[in-house]
């Protein structure tokens, strides 16, 4: 049967059953959209001239400006006052971080693929061009920044960095999905190590690594116990009746496994902590950090520390326990009710008074990170609370009726839906946090935006109007990261089907 042929009407005049082809040639498109009547033509001409003028001006600026201030201060823009003869630490840490995130993303990708296969969903194929499309802004901005370098080394560094990401991802992608958790753990540890290379292994760093290794050991031992029947013979029934062991469950065996895993975890953690403390790579803490590096670091800390705290606060605010609820409400409303500037001033003037004397007063950056975390946690809490309220009450009641514990209801039923619903708002908060870090300069931290002022105060570049060069440079840096964040959030939304399901 021939589609679209009506008898009696010449074929070429017959109305087609297919939708008409709306593709226009460029000339037609311009005529139909820009010059279809006299006033649209006028507007088009005026706007066209304006655009052309702006473009010429921008090109003129880009070609005639003297970028010496950026070439000479590139390191200042990137890492602030970090000691120049220790820059290898920055590179080493960058490599570790890039390799680890490549590996982690590869592992995640593989496990998601396996998950999709299992459920019979369409399987995403791996493609590097897709990766490039997702992260082109950051890749482009890195190349752009490095193009100002005066030596060959940063170029090499960039190439090695990209190479490590590729290698890491390919390795991660080849890891068996069964090893997913271990792979992610490994990548997390490497990420932490990247911090230790910079900040040294004393104090907090050693504690964090020790803690992570401890937790790892704990879970490994427990898994082993479960698989080999050292603990309970049957699968562990999970409910609050676990606490009421005296009724019917084989307490001794399970508790034995629990005890063993805890002991092993603590022992490994303490040993790791002690070894790292003793070795001590003699890093720099983070009070010397600055530039783009500082800005990104504070943002990442603000997000990754603020998010769990924020979720807990949101849950706490819904608690029926008045004390918990009260504390959460006071904390959220206090942090949200004052500008970030006043919180930063609080960190500078009042926080030192709140630390016990034997503890020692932490440096300005540590204090700033504490309040930035509190600030972002409060905002995240309110965003998440909105999501929590969107989860139908009936689901929670059904889960309760099914005998699920409070923690499991939240973890398996409420939070996944609540968080999915608020991804756009959350990412919006993350992006504004990235930009809010520019306020750190008021407490004397040399963040990315401030490096521009500092460079312009150098005798050599003083008063020549070079902010016109440095501000766009800095703005591009902020833009690349903010844009990538928002792009990624849209991707996550699409994949989770926000607004569709």
């Amino acid at each position, binding site marked *: 049967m021939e589609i679209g042929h009506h008898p009696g009407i010449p074929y070429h005049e017959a109305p087609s059953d297919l939708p008409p082809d709306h593709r226009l040639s460029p000339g037609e498109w311009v005529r139909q959209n820009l010059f279809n009547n006299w006033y649209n033509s006028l507007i088009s001409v005026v706007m066209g001239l304006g655009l052309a003028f702006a473009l010429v001006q921008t090109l003129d600026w880009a070609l005639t400006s003297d970028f010496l201030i950026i070439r000479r201060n590139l390191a200042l823009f990137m890492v602030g006052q970090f000691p120049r003869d220790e820059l290898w630490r920055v590179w080493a840490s960058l490599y570790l971080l890039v390799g680890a995130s490549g590996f982690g993303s590869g592992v995640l990708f593989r496990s998601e693929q396996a998950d999709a296969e299992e459920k019979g969903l369409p399987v995403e194929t791996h493609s590097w061009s897709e990766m490039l499309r997702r992260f082109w802004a950051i890749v482009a901005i890195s190349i752009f920044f490095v193009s100002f370098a005066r030596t060959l080394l940063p170029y090499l560094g960039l190439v090695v960095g990209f190479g490590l990401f590729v290698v890491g991802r390919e390795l991660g992608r080849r890891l068996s999905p069964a090893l997913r958790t271990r792979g992610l753990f490994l990548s997390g540890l490497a990420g932490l190590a990247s911090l230790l290379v910079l900040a040294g292994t004393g104090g907090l760093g050693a504690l964090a690594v020790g803690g992570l290794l401890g937790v790892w050991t704990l879970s490994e031992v427990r898994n082993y116990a479960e698989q080999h029947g050292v603990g309970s013979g049957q699968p562990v029934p999970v409910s609050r009746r676990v606490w009421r062991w005296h009724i019917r469950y084989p307490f001794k065996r399970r508790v034995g496994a629990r005890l063993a895993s805890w002991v092993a975890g603590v022992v490994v953690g303490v040993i790791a902590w002690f070894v790292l403390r003793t070795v001590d790579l003699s890093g720099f803490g983070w009070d010397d950090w600055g530039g783009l590096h500082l800005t990104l670091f504070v943002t990442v800390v603000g997000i990754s520390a603020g998010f769990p705290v924020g979720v807990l606060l949101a849950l706490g605010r819904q608690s029926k326990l008045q004390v918990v609820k009260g504390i959460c409400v006071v904390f959220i409303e206090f942090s949200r009710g004052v500008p970030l500037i006043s919180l930063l001033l609080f960190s500078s003037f009042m926080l030192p008074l709140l630390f016990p004397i034997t503890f*020692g007063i932490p440096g300005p950056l540590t204090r700033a990170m504490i309040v930035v975390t509190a600030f972002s946690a409060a905002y995240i809490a309110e965003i998440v609370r909105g999501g929590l309220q969107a989860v139908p009450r009936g689901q929670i009641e059904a889960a309760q009726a099914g005998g699920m514990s409070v923690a499991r209801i939240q973890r398996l039923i409420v939070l996944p839906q609540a968080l999915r619903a608020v991804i756009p708002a959350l990412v919006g908060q993350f992006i504004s946090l990235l930009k809010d870090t520019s306020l750190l300069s008021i407490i*004397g931290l040399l963040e990315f935006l401030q490096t521009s002022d*500092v460079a312009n105060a*150098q*005798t050599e570049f003083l008063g020549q109007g070079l902010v016109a060069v440095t501000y766009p440079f800095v703005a591009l840096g902020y833009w690349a990261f903010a844009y990538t964040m928002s792009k990624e959030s849209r991707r996550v939304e699409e994949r989770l089907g926000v607004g569709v399901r």
Partner: protein
Amino acid sequence: MGRIYLEGKPYMNKNSKLLRLLAVIFTIVLVAAACGDDDGDEETEPAETTPTETAAPAEDDTAEDEGGRLAAVIARGSLNCGVNQTLPGFGNVDANGNNVGFDIDFCRVVAAAVLGNADAVNYTPLDAAQRFPTLQSGEIDLLVRNTTWTASRDGNEQANFMFTTFFDGQGFMVHGDSEINSISDMSGASICVLQGTTTLLNLNSVFGDMGIGFTPVEFQSNDELQPAFTSGQCEVWTTDASGLAAFSSTLDIPTRVLGDIISKEPLGPVVPDGDTEWAQVVNWATMATVQAEEYGITSSNIGSFDDTDNSNIRRFLGLPIEGEIAEVGLGLPADFASNIISQVGNYGEIYERHLAPLGLERGVNALWTDGGLMYVPPFR
């Protein structure tokens, strides 16, 4: 089963609340124990903690009672100095990330005097609003951040102002070919000035007192004022002398900064109130740079003074006089001045290094022997 459930429910609720309470108490105890642990750590292993880390502030605290800040700085091995990072010439960061500037060099001077190493300084960048609270909190030993010495600051801010290293003040700038050479030539001149500043108030009161008529041309910001001055809209530009010098070096027309100063802005190092020993150390270290310039000792020629016969210079540099080294008794090593000069330089060198490139003339900051205000007590 159903019966058990019904009976069990109230009991279980009570139990779970109890459990939650227990959990909360347990958490609090854990936190307390963690804090307690840290206390114990500090007390039982003082030998292990390095002075750069947590031990430093703790030492500061004991320092108040025992050895004072000088002892604390020596024990720590570094000087905590509060500085500016965005003031051209005075406090700035160079492309290599080093703090540089006139004020920065006085941090280095004190470090060279006390520790024998001008590089042993931890710089704390401070905002104008932060500087006094930070000084009071004891986080910094010394504040060198273009801070004007005034009575109310000395009185209310618990700040102790040291020797003035730079006499700033409201100055005047004219075009290079201008016939104006001093304030008395400015009769009827148009003067560019920022709106609503103390600069304008000073201008009105001083010129009014002297009976000189002038036309103020007011602007909102220096960015608007600069082209007006360049294009000849006004003959004179007035603001702080150091600022004028900084601007004059960047203009593409020849300019002159006049020697006349009509307000007093003495800038110098500041230490916290209440530690005389430390204040004296900072003061004499700072003044040593001026004395060195007076003696003509520079970082390059200091070696040639090793066998000088001048007993004053020998004493100043900590060289033995008749086989004996005289102690100054300030808590400083005898050769502190020699460390300062060889590592940082004398006052004139510091000035030349940072302020001369901005086009700032010595003016009132010249030595007293050259008719300036740089006069220090004798080092004997």
